[in-house]
């Protein structure tokens, strides 16, 4: 019920936006039905349910594991890039569980990189001259992994991943173009399970990235 109200509210925001811009023709369906979707409104592209190596089983130690493959994505085209292109400049960001790669260093041949900006997505419109764009040097990545280090916090008591509000990923694409990206949810349908949800639900609905980005 609440979710529907939110979606209606979002749809209203979008439609009112359309009323005063003419750069798009058809109305965009922004509802999040749990499937992968990319749409652009104005200069902001939204991505829903980008699957990032969902859990397929348990390790010998009882830890949930995926297949180990990254999902590659091009910020320039707004599309998923096949894994066979992982060694090319075709992709800009890649996702696997909570790990995010950029196309440079140990991750790829591109001129990519990233840093994490603390602030609001709407307020940041350029790379900060004082911030260093870092490149991946596995196992240390430009966007740090680990709870409370990069983009997310892990609540171990409830086994949930939550994006830290006010973290904007400043990403340099493989060709050096600059983007800002904000993750809003890590679960299928863009809804974090309740803390009281079963582990089975928490495991089966995680690793679905929901985010928005803009070219700078």
């Amino acid at each position: 019920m609440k979710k529907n109200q939110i979606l209606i509210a979002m749809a209203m925001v979008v439609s009112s936006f359309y009323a005063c811009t003419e750069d798009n023709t058809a109305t965009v369906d922004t509802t999040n039905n749990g499937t992968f979707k990319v749409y652009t409104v104005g200069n902001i592209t939204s991505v829903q349910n980008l699957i990032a190596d969902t859990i397929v089983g348990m390790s010998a130690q009882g830890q949930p594991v995926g297949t180990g493959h990254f999902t590659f994505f091009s910020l320039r085209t707004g599309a998923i890039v096949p894994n066979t292109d992982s060694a090319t400049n075709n992709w800009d960001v890649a996702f696997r569980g909570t790990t995010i790669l950029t196309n440079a260093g140990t991750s790829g041949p591109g001129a990519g990189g990233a840093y994490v900006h603390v602030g609001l997505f709407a307020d940041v419109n350029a790379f900060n001259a004082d911030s260093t764009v870092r490149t991946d040097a596995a196992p240390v990545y430009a966007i740090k992994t680990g709870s409370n280090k990069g983009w997310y916090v892990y609540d171990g008591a409830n086994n949930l991943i939550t994006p830290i509000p006010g973290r904007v990923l400043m990403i340099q694409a493989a060709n050096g173009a600059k983007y800002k990206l904000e993750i809003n949810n890590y679960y299928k349908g863009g809804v974090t399970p309740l803390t009281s949800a079963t582990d089975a639900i928490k495991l089966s609905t995680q690793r679905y990235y929901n985010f928005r980005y803009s070219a700078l």
Partner: protein
Amino acid sequence: MNPVITHLFSNKLKSTLRLYATNYNADQSLNTSGKSIYDDKLNHQFLRAENQTDYYLNDKVCFNAGVGMVQEGVKSNRYELNSTRRTNNIAYVFAQTEIKPIEKLTIIAGFRYDNNQLFAAAFSPKIAAMLKANDHLKFNASIGRGFKAPDFRQLYLNFTNTAAGGYSVFGALEAQKQIEFLQSIGQISSIESDYYRLKELHPEYATGINLGLQYNPNAAVQFDFSLFRNDVENLIDTRLVAYHKSGAQIFSYLNLKNAYTQGIETQLNVKITPQIAVAAGYQYLLTADKDQIKEIKAGKIYTIDASGFARLMRLDEYIGLPNRSKHMANFKFTYENENYFTNLRVLFRSKWAVSDKDGNGLYNTNDAFANAFAQINFAAGKQFSKQFRAQVGCDNIGNYVDIANLPNLAGRTFYTTLTYQFNQKKK
């Protein structure tokens, strides 16, 4: 052992020497079939010697002062080595004066100075005043500073509960050492940001101000009202610092700087008839971490909007410390005569923050809360003879359960107790 020697030098000067010694041994072993063995050994020794001297100058002024020493030692397999005895020695002096400048006013001022072997010395002054306006109305005010030293558990604990999922609690002096060791053998899966804040644990200091009044218009009615404010520096709090490879949590203790609690407390007791009494109490409580308030005011704290994207958090969305309810109330009705009694108790707690749902590291209105609840308990009993007594009761009549947030609250519970007391020797 608790010997006391009192010597009256004169009817104005009295000196008391108190000695107190305990030795406590416990050995608990729990063997659950198919699970790990839970074993717990503890030896605790406590020695205290104290001398207090009281001097009555006149009806209006009296003094007392004293010195004392405490020696404490603990040995436990919950600490690193069961063979190592952890000890601490505290020497202290205190002095207090009580002055009655006028018949209706009493002023008490005093201090205590503790020299703690493990921590820096602490000075704790206090001043209190009580004004008896008339036979029905009393006012009191006090301000004092106190401290609470970390205990052995908070310093040295090295405990892994193998019987309950393998979570660990390490004392602040042990945590870094233990976690570094576990990490070196590949037994740590991740480290939390609070791990990097681990350091030597300091005592908690609290400054408390209390203003109160007591009104009893007649013998059957008493009304108490007080305003309180406690400013705590270096509040000691349990924090999650790392995870075992198994996913089990590792906790330790941190000084959480500069929190405050403030509020109002009221209590009304009415004896309607000699048999029937009613008591009602209410507490309003506000809490906060002052450093977090500073960060919010500086515009450094964000929360999420309906779509999950970040927006700035406002100060009015701040909740303060978790696990504390803003409103708490209790009500008690009792009926009692020579051979029959019954009572009804109602406890109410408003919602309280339990987890940081929006991921911003503090507690605000966008987070997860435990629901407000009321618990109603009823009991009745009858005394059949001097020896024999029967009682029936029902706890939690409303059958309120919240397993996640109130694991100790059982559902509706009926009980009966029969008590038979064997003849006692008459004194």
